């Protein structure tokens, strides 16, 4: 038996996978990994990750092996240290495998110039799925663990690591793309040509009121000449909705399942991972 314990949570430490599907008609959000590029790259280093990843935002966690040994890899732009049992400290690069033995403690510092980071574990985290997914939806309290992780949470990985050979993957460059080509939203006609011109010609700032549910943007208000209140309809990650204050919200992975604000545009699905990594204060532009 191999066991480790969370000794520092950092911020917003949750379990995520590729998403919880087939339940949105019952009001259950898809959730899942915010920046899918990183776990995809980690999968080359840790092939048997069992789709059970830890996700953190801004500040990374610490975890300590209590029993046995585990093999992990960290993805994201962050500094990674291991405090060995013999009190030496070793720095590791992202996207390399890290062997952790009893007493070793892994600590991940802040994400640099980005938001999300991930840890993959060889043989996973020993979790059972909930509604066909391991992902934590903290708002609906659904998941293998239905809340953010806390200090003292322990994970048991029964299967031993079969190879301690070091693996690595060329680091994923987290591009600082800030201009996004978007698709027309179903209520694009709720906005006049003039407002649409403002949408594509002005700059929007990502505000601090942004999280796994959505990124709230601030810029020149986008006022509808029809209404900011529509009959609720299904929404997907990447939808850009505009409530009555005219400030757009880009919906992310923990979306509410239906929404009653007009959607001016929809982001390309692969851009959701990219925009997720832009910290508050970043200025972005859209192209229709």
């Amino acid at each position, binding site marked *: 038996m191999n066991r480790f314990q969370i000794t520092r949570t950092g911020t917003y430490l949750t379990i995520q996978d590729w*998403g919880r*599907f*087939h*339940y*949105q*008609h*019952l*009001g*259950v959000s*898809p959730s899942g990994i915010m920046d899918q590029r990183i776990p995809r790259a980690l999968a080359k280093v840790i092939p048997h990750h069992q789709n059970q990843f830890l996700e953190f935002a801004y500040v990374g966690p610490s975890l300590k092996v209590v029993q046995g040994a585990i093999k992990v890899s960290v993805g994201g732009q962050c500094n990674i240290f291991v405090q060995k049992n013999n009190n030496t400290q070793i720095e590791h690069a992202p996207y390399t495998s890290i062997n952790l033995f009893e007493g070793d403690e892994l600590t991940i510092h802040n994400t640099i110039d980005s938001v999300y980071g991930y840890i993959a574990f060889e043989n996973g985290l020993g979790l059972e799925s*909930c*509604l066909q997914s391991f992902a934590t939806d903290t*708002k*609906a*309290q*659904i998941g293998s663990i239905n809340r953010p992780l806390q200090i003292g949470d322990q994970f048991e990985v029964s299967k031993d690591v079969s190879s301690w050979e070091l693996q690595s993957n060329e680091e994923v460059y987290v591009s600082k793309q800030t201009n996004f080509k978007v*698709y027309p939203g*179903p209520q694009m006609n709720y906005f006049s040509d003039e407002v649409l011109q403002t949408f594509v010609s002005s700059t929007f700032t990502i505000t601090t009121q942004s999280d796994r549910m959505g990124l709230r943007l601030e810029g020149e208000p986008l006022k509808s000449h029809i209404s900011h209140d529509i*009959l*609720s*309809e*299904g*929404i*997907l990650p*990447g*939808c850009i909705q505009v409530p009555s204050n005219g400030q757009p919200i880009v919906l992310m992975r923990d979306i*509410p*399942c*239906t929404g009653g604000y007009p959607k001016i545009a*929809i*982001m*390309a*699905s692969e851009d959701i991972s990219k925009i997720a990594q832009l910290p508050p204060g970043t200025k972005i532009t859209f192209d229709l």
Partner: protein
Amino acid sequence: MFFKGINHYGDLGLILDFGSDSSQQISQEVNAVYALLQDLDLPQLNIIPSFNKIVLAFQSGKDRNQAQDAIEHNLAKADLKKTQKDRIYWNIPACYEDSYALDRELIQATHGLSKEEVISKHTSTSYYAYYIGFMPGFPYLGDIDSSLITPRLATPRIQIPARSIGIAKEHTCVYPKVSPGGWNIIGQVPFDIFSLEHSRTSLFLPGDTVQFQSISEKEFLQIHSKHLAFDEIIKEFSK
């Protein structure tokens, strides 16, 4: 048919449009098409019905285009009457006493109704379950008696107690869990309506009929203390 057509919804989605109005007839067609889509075994990640739209989500553009062809082909020749699923008629106990009915007096004052009139108007109508959304297991039911139609609260509540019954505009609902929200709260049901323990997951499903039945606080507490499982609720409170 109210169905107007299929459009792309971003690069991985489709949206089926049933116009801009809302009515029980439109919703019946939406839910019949929803049942047809489920039977088609499309490579979809999610199908999300609402008042007058169905949104589908896919993993790839290829899946999306393949599904669009299949939907257009099958919808053209479908007999939607045959895709209607057997739905449950619910008789749901509800307590409208003061401690559970945070906004009942506001409703009474707004419409000049007595407590008994509000209760009798809310319990004498059988409601159609349009769809489930907003949060896990949250049913949009309607339409309520026109003399009860009330806008949402000007300032939404930060915390609505779990299992609360709300009304807003033409609709009534039950909050499955503690949640922020703006519906006017007029009562509470005595059991959970969302459960990970039962394959149904959500007690109410689109197309179900729900009628509430007023119970006393004593009866409410009695039923609540039993912590009924979905199977027991179905057995006791549906027909």
